[in-house]
């Protein structure tokens, strides 16, 4: 009796290694959640003092005056900064959507063999260019070009940053959009072609509607990217707190404000906490955008 129960107990070294690896994989698996929660707790902890004590929500969201370093009467209004981020991201989408949709359709539906692989590699390469390099391009190439072409005094404007950010988001949107097109089953295309549809009709009437959710997800992730981008926007917008009235106005983005000012504030001061509050705001916005994108993409699978 005793002998046989010992035989059943297979807890040898292999069993322990197996258990250990399982645990390791489990921890790695949930590490993203731990990090996200950790980051959120950290930025909330740093910013909560401002939210509770100093912040006037009406001023914070609806005042255009951002002057946090004024000793007597500091002003913490992020409306102009939100407008800056939104205008740059909006223009970037106008640039990126046609580009990325076009190249996704070409790569996914028209290109074959070598051309296709080559293009895919190039798009990925474009996505890998560091944002500070894009900022450089905005500062040294686009800036004089915009001054020259449009005869405006300063070239670091919504137009400059929007174009740069558009080129930055396009490759990411292209990759996701192409995946969405690939997810459309071939039988849809075959059925349409059997009905005598031309290639354009197949794409426009069958493939695009079928991939609609995936494409929308791609656009939403592009928006998320635009909202969060810092370096290129910091360098190309002209750093001017301003409600833009045209694409030739200089603006300042939320992210750029944090990047430019955080290193220069005393830890724990109102200004420091206000910057963290902007961080919380950005975190929530990108969280909502990414969650929506995820739900939208998931919708396509269920349907």
């Amino acid at each position, binding site marked *: 009796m005793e002998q046989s129960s010992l035989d059943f107990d297979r807890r040898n070294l292999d069993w322990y290694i197996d258990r250990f690896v399982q645990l390791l994989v489990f921890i790695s698996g949930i590490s993203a959640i731990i990090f996200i929660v950790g980051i959120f707790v950290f930025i909330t902890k740093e910013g909560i003092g401002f939210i509770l004590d100093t912040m006037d929500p009406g001023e914070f969201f609806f005042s*255009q*005056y951002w*002057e*946090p*370093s*004024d*000793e*007597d*009467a500091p*002003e913490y209004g992020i409306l*102009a900064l939100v407008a800056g981020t939104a205008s740059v991201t909006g223009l970037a989408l106008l640039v990126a959507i046609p580009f990325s949709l076009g190249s996704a359709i070409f790569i996914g539906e028209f290109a074959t063999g070598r051309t296709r692989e080559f293009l895919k590699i190039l798009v990925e390469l474009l996505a890998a260019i560091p944002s500070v390099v894009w900022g450089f391009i905005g500062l040294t190439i686009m800036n004089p070009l915009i001054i020259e072409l449009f*005869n*405006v*005094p*300063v070239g*670091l404007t919504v137009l400059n940053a929007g174009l740069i950010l558009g080129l930055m988001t396009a490759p990411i949107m292209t990759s996701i959009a192409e995946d969405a097109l690939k997810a459309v089953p071939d039988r849809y295309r075959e059925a349409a072609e059997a009905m005598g549809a031309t290639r354009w009709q197949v794409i426009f009437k069958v493939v695009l509607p079928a991939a609609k959710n995936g494409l929308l997800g791609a656009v939403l992730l592009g928006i998320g990217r635009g909202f969060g981008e810092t370096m290129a926007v910091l360098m190309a917008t*002209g*750093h*001017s*707190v*301003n*409600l833009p009235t045209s694409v030739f*106005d*200089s603006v*300042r983005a939320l992210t750029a404000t944090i990047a*430019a*000012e955080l*290193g*220069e*504030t*005393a*830890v*724990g*001061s109102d200004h420091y906490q206000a910057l963290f509050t902007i961080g919380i705001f950005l975190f929530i916005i990108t969280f909502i955008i990414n969650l929506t994108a995820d739900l939208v993409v998931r919708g396509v699978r269920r349907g």
Partner: protein
Amino acid sequence: MKIEKGIIAVFMLAAALVSTYVYARTEIQNKGSDTLVNVAQAWAEAYQKIKPDVAVAVSGGGSGTGIASLINGTVDIANASRKMKDKEIRLAEKHGHSPVEHIVGFDALAVFIHSANPVTGLSIPQLKEIYGREGKITRWTDLGIEVPGCQDQQIVVVSRQNNSGTYAYFRKAVLGKKGKFRQGTLDMHGSKDVVDLVEKTPCAIGYSGLAYATDHIKMACIQDGDACVSPSVQTASSNDYPIARPLLMYTSGAPAGEVKEYLDWVLSDAGQCIISDKGYAPVRKIACP
């Protein structure tokens, strides 16, 4: 990919450890005002020659940066082109530092315009109309002049980022104690950026320390009644120029040891000749070689 990053991190850590062992000499951390950074650099280099075993590490970033670092306890000396605010002093005391102020020189704040701009003098009230939030002057034609090469004569107002001591001083001196800057100013990150931009932009007006002036840029004199005072080392020392300010260094508590020796040297004739060489006014009359 992750493993590679790990390896790189280990190497960097090792390199950092090794380098701290190699530089086993006294290091004075000096950070802050962008206006002072060139002088601080020159002081550090000259001091290196006198005392090779003391290294002064200088970095800029703005007066706010330096003061914040002093409060956070990461520097020995903070450079500032404005006085510490009461709030900052309170915060420093909360962190266990009691800042001590040392005046190391004076600086005239120059108002820069493009070399093609026909303006010669501007008064403080005029500057207030240009820079202030309720200001009425938005075009050069409002001043009764026309700037060649400037489309639609819209003034491009160039300012500094809001942690800059130059920014804080300019606001107080020109816009008044309760004054606010107008919206839509281009907030540059350094004095040199202001000069670069104004140099290239006919419509622009900007302000910076006198020492950043170049040959390709014009400085407006400040109209005071009938007289128009140009910014210079002399007018700054003699207190004739209305927008001149003291340049300061802050230490945590009274300086001691190497830091004290360094500050004493900065205020000596040798140190003061360096600051006057860089275009700022020394703290007292001195004869330099």
